């Protein structure tokens, strides 16, 4: 987007001979966290390359587990990279990045400070004179339309107005780079739409108080509406799958055919993790096989509910489905992933179809469904098979919780492992494959009668 016509007032004049270094450059960056058993490292991000230039809006789009927010925190210097290098205008970034401001998902306002004090907090930290602090903060509040509420406390404001304070607090710093971490996702649909438009307008007007924006989002429409480039991240570990340029003229109209076409293209990428992105897509590498034990956080009940909604013969397009269900992609994808894992449905080119097993399941009665789900679980979820063998090998027909949790802990961080363990328990319980007691922390076989255990 070097051809951008906007000339932000404080951007340095580029030297004539060579292009200026990018605002921020991430080179072969990896972020590792230790796995739950502490023996190994789990990569959240790996071999990540990304450049942010002056004057552009970049959207980071990825499913949960792609480490989008981690990228943002690396850029801010809130986290340090485990490997690779991050450069700020050609200089290695060490410690906190003083050129950035963040707008947080949860607003992160201090409830005991007034709107004005919240806005001014970053200027105060610099030890500026009180009069100047106040003037600049009031100007920032005016930009977001809150100058009348300067003396109010955040609790007196609606969610949308609170996030406006979050923006004002960032604007007042006049950061080179404004980072936004899902800034609209804690707001209701209407408010989010409104605020999104306002930010877009401010940017289009040309005197935006930051040179560039990076926005993390899981909403495809939001990415298309705001960005000049959409960076698609793969999950587990997160790396750049590809970059989709967004040349749509501003202001953007979300009903325009070009807009819809771009949205649909991105839907295709998001729902098919193996599909190469863009014309200059990297060759599909053999890559690491998807981790064998991964369990998407969706209940079996939700999967069955979704199956009911898919037309048996033709399937349904995912964009249509998401629209119909009023579900965020973030909520829909785990259910689909789980359905695919159990071989009940398959996704091809953003189109969802039932498999033969899926159709059998729909036709079956309650007992038949459970029977089928048990079979699918044993066949397609490695952890279920392993547990089955362990139970058969045990004298008392019991297996401790820790055995299963440790197995997950070999490949995932503690938090991930615990989440997957909970999913696993809910799956085996709801189809009656095994019994599990939370008090004794033990798995037991059901003795074949499929009797379910309540409680917990």
């Amino acid at each position, binding site marked *: 987007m070097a051809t951008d016509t906007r000339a932000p007032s404080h951007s340095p004049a580029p030297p004539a001979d060579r292009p200026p270094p990018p605002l921020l450059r991430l080179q072969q960056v990896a972020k590792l966290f230790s796995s739950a058993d502490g023996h190994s490292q789990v990569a959240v991000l790996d071999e990540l390359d990304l450049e942010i230039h002056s004057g552009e809006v970049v959207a980071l789009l990825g499913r949960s587990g792609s480490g989008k927010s981690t990228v943002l925190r690396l850029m801010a210097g809130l986290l340090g990279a485990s490997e690779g290098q991050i450069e700020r205008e050609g200089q290695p970034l060490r410690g*906190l990045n003083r050129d950035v401001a*963040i707008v947080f998902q949860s607003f992160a306002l201090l409830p005991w400070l007034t709107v004005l004090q919240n806005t001014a907090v*970053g200027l105060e*930290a610099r*030890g500026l004179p009180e009069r100047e602090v106040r003037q600049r903060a009031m100007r920032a509040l005016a930009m977001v339309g809150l100058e009348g*509420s300067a003396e*109010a406390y955040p609790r007196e*404001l609606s969610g949308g107005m609170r996030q406006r304070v979050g923006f004002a607090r960032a604007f007042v710093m006049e950061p080179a780079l404004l980072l936004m971490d899902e800034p609209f996702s804690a707001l209701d649909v209407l408010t989010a739409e409104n605020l999104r438009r306002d930010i877009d307008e401010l940017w289009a007007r040309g005197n935006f108080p930051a040179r560039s924006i990076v926005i993390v989002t899981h909403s495809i429409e939001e990415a298309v509406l705001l960005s000049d480039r959409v960076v698609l991240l793969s999950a587990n570990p997160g790396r750049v799958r590809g970059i989709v340029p967004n040349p749509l003229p501003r202001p953007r109209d979300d009903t325009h055919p070009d807009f819809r076409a771009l949205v649909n293209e991105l839907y295709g990428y998001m729902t098919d993790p193996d599909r190469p992105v863009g014309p200059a897509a990297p060759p599909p590498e053999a890559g690491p096989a998807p981790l064998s034990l991964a369990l998407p956080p969706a209940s079996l009940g939700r999967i069955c509910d979704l199956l009911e909604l898919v037309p048996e013969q033709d399937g349904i397009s995912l964009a249509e489905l998401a629209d119909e269900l009023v579900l965020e992609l973030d909520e829909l994808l785990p259910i689909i992933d789980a359905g695919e894992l159990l071989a009940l449905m398959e996704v091809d080119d953003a189109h969802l179809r039932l498999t033969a097993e899926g159709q059998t399941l729909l036709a079956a009665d309650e007992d038949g469904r459970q029977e089928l789900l048990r079979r699918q679980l044993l066949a397609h979820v490695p952890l279920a098979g392993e547990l089955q063998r362990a139970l058969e090998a045990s004298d008392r027909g019991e297996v401790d919780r820790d055995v299963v949790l440790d197995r997950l802990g070999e490949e995932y961080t503690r938090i991930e492992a615990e989440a997957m363990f909970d999913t696993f328990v809910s799956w085996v319980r709801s189809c009656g494959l095994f019994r599990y007691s939370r008090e004794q922390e033990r798995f037991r076989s059901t003795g074949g009668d499929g009797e379910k255990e309540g409680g917990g």
Partner: protein
Amino acid sequence: MKSTVLVPAGAPEGRLTLRSLAVDLSLLLAGLFLVVLIANLGSQMAVSFHPSARQAGLDLAPIHLPYYAARSLLRMFIGLAISLLIGVSVGSLTARSAVAERLLLPVVDVLQSVPVLGFLAVIVPFFLGLFPGNALGLEAASIFAIVTGQVWNLIFCYHQSLATIPGELLEAAGVYGFSGWQRFTRLELPSSAIPLVWNGMVSFAGGWFFATQSEAISVDNASYILPGLGSYVASAIALQRMDSVLWALLTMLVLIVLTDQLFWRPIVAWSERFRFDSGTAAQPAGSWLLELLQQSRALAWLGGRLERMSAPLRRRLNRWTAAGRQERLRGRRREAPRWLDALVLVLGGLLLVPALAHSLRQLGSLEILRVVGCALLTLGRVAAVVGASTWLFLPLAVTIGLRPKLASLLQPLMLMLASIPANLLFPFFTVVFLLSGTPLTLGCVLLMAMGAQWYVLFNTTAGASAIPNDLREMALVFHLRGRQRWRRFLMPALFSSWVTGAVTASGAAWNASIVAELVTWGHHRLSTPGLGSYIAEATASGDKPRLLLGLVVMSLLVVGFNRMLWRPLHRLAERRYGH
């Protein structure tokens, strides 16, 4: 963008009226009175004093009671201020450094289980030596006793509040370059304000017991008296003056109501602004005094003036403590090495074991049997206190707690009852025991319960009133009755709050045993074998080896029960019976 105008929540901008003038004038007078009073009381603290000279008892004329009460109260407030200061400094140290956390928190945990009263024997001579020939030494010892009664609690409270600051707020503080001063005054202190205030209030109530008890003590066969409510009662007991005891009790009640209305209520109401979750305060606490203060034009003017005057100072503080460029977020701190645990144990052992061995060599090993026997007796009494107060108060708590109106009426009353230091009530019971010939072996259970029972009642009442409304309606609709209602509905619902109450109650009962197993009325002296009387006698006669042995055994018992019984119960309560 649209702009929305809200009513500013700033300073009052009322006009000058007769009423506002009256408010300002009365506040001014009250302020002047307070300053003069404190100056006067403070100068009284440093009078000369000779331990050798025989001290007369206090003048028991009721007219002197306000003065004695004020002396006690001043000690309480100094103690509270010191406790807060220590709590905040040690709490932020442990929250910042993993090493400090590993080293200090276990020590604090043990120290909070150690019976404070037993320490007076060690403290008093030390502080007397610090201020020779001056009563300040005694004052310091008394304040020290108050501090040791509440400081541990506040350390944990502050540490815990810092640990639960939302992650995105910490990140915001990093990204927006908060200076150290801003971090402290804008993030850390406000985040912990509400827990600190509530903890301080409860600790303050508990502190009266130590304040009154430490004003008149016998150490090393010498008795020391500091003017105050506790020493007034002690003198009344020595002279068998029941009327004076009653006067003291009345003064105590007035004092409790006054501190509640003039100090805690306004602070609690004011601290509401530091709540994280917006707008969902159960019942916004009101305070007439706070409203009055907020109406005052003079105070608003003074506040604005101070704020403007201090602006350059704050700016300088921000510069001095500016966040370094290299500063990383203190999100995930590095783990402290595990061997620090062992270090704490070894150091503790190195301190204790030789001293214990020395004591045992002096006393003979059979003394251990005696101590353990005493400990078992007191343990039985503590169990009886917790059991009996549960059995008596659980039905009462349910009756009150399930009726919101009754609860809101009685809960403040219960907190006040809980604030009455039990030792002020002892003389009445002692006289009854003497007249009826009740053996203290049983009677002292009642005495210990006087201080401890309220925690059970108070916590379970709060638990009962916190039962969600739909659960209550369910119990009614499905006709849960009698045993089934208790087993399936009330007991699980109240379990968590009962555990909290019972832990506190048993701690209070252990502490109370030191004063409850040995009581006097004039020349009558009632005593019963137990760990409490063992420690009390060793204190009075300056028997250091026995004192050490008794203290160590009691601390071990309290710590042991906390670890083996209460903590697992607490975890169970959280896991299974959390709402």
